[in-house]
């Protein structure tokens, strides 16, 4: 069953996922851009799958295309749930 969506829970999910893509944990912050982290569109597509698995929230290509920072991604998921 999907986990309850809170900003803290989503942040943890995103922070846990990024190192799997080769991102250094110490580089991750809400303000870090995915470009800085060398996270590209296919990585983001995979992040969307992880979010969907965890929270049942589907992120569309258009939504994902707009996000620039780690914080944007977290806010998008939280807002979509609300």
């Amino acid at each position, binding site marked *: 069953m999907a986990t309850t969506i809170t900003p803290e829970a989503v942040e943890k999910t995103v922070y846990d996922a990024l190192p*799997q*893509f*080769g991102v250094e944990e110490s580089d991750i912050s809400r303000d870090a851009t995915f470009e800085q982290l*060398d996270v590209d569109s*296919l990585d983001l*597509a*995979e992040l969307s*799958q992880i979010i*969907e*698995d965890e929270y049942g929230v*589907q992120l569309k290509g258009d939504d994902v295309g707009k996000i620039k920072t780690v914080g944007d991604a977290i806010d998008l998921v939280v807002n979509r749930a609300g």
Partner: protein
Amino acid sequence: MKRDIVVTGIGAVTPLGVGARTLYERWRAGASGIEDGVGACTDFDPTEHLSKKEARRADRFTQFAMVASDEALREAGWADELPYETGRVGCIIGTGIGGIGILLEGQKTLDERGPRRVSPFMLPHMLPDSASGQVAIQYGIRGPNMAVVSACATGGHAIGEAMETIVRGQADIMLGAGTEAPLVPLAFAGFGQMRALGTPIDPDTGEYNPAMASRPFDRTRNGFVVSEGSAVLVLEELQHALARGARPIAEVIGYGSSADAFDMAAPAERGEGNQRAMRAALARAGIGPQEVDYINAHGTSTPLNDRFETMAIREVFGEHADRLAVSSTKSMTGHAMGAAGAIEAYVCVKTITTGCIPPTINYRHPDPELTLDYVPNEARAAEVRVALSNSMGLGGHNSSVIFRRYED
């Protein structure tokens, strides 16, 4: 102006170990890389060589090519910075199958969890050209780039086509390579049903012995052993290589390519297509058959291949066939499909530079019909000035590549 092509760097990942030098040291010792019925690159750990991101994105066949390319480019002396304008550097990395591992994983995910769970990396990384593309990204090389595919003849074609790309003037330096990672149950099942796999039984004692499964040219041979790996050769136009102070390792002087147009699995009678590939390679090199000292045979250990390849060598080389050394390193590495021709091209180059001819191991029972000198069981010290590598693939593809000692 005539453009001579030399090899300036080599890299390899094979069941005999990671690194070209390891492969040489182990073949010199007549070692077998076959365990449990397959030739797996068990010493290969992608995380030792690639970043997490690089390793995660690539199928195993691409990982092999990336690691072998790195070794080859370092030996050529330019891993960190290109010595040429980026558009003059190209790459042809062939594979027989491509990313079958990542493809099957994707299918499993689709079946079990539905289309929304299929990895976004599956498609770009299963394609046969992804190794060539990924290596180009890694080193920023923007010249001619593609994969060639001709089943088990792929490695020879990739190196030959890379050579011709430089001769045509489209590039000054090319990576020519083959890579393969076919060790999945589906491939074993398919080859098994073709009755193409060697049995891992010692023919004398009847006991289980996987290292005995590949026994090319032996009377009891009954099939090949599937293996995996990659080899990369850096090919370079001679004057450019000398101008930047690179050390030519050997020349690549001939390349021939032909089709049997006969059968999808069986080779043409008397190795007719193989004969034409060897003749074309000799003509391209502008040398006579008597100049060749060593042939690294395709030598798969199947009854038909080894018989017809032997006949083809006799037809092309005439009386000189009895003075040639002919060996099959597949007796030690197994058959790495699309990588085999590239691995064996390296073997030819190393044989020229070291004067050490690799043996055909597991050779105990001479076949009355197969009467060449197969360098049985032990490596041999001999002067080798010119060496030819044969490769043939399902579909009736044949490639032959000729290397010669570099003499300034």
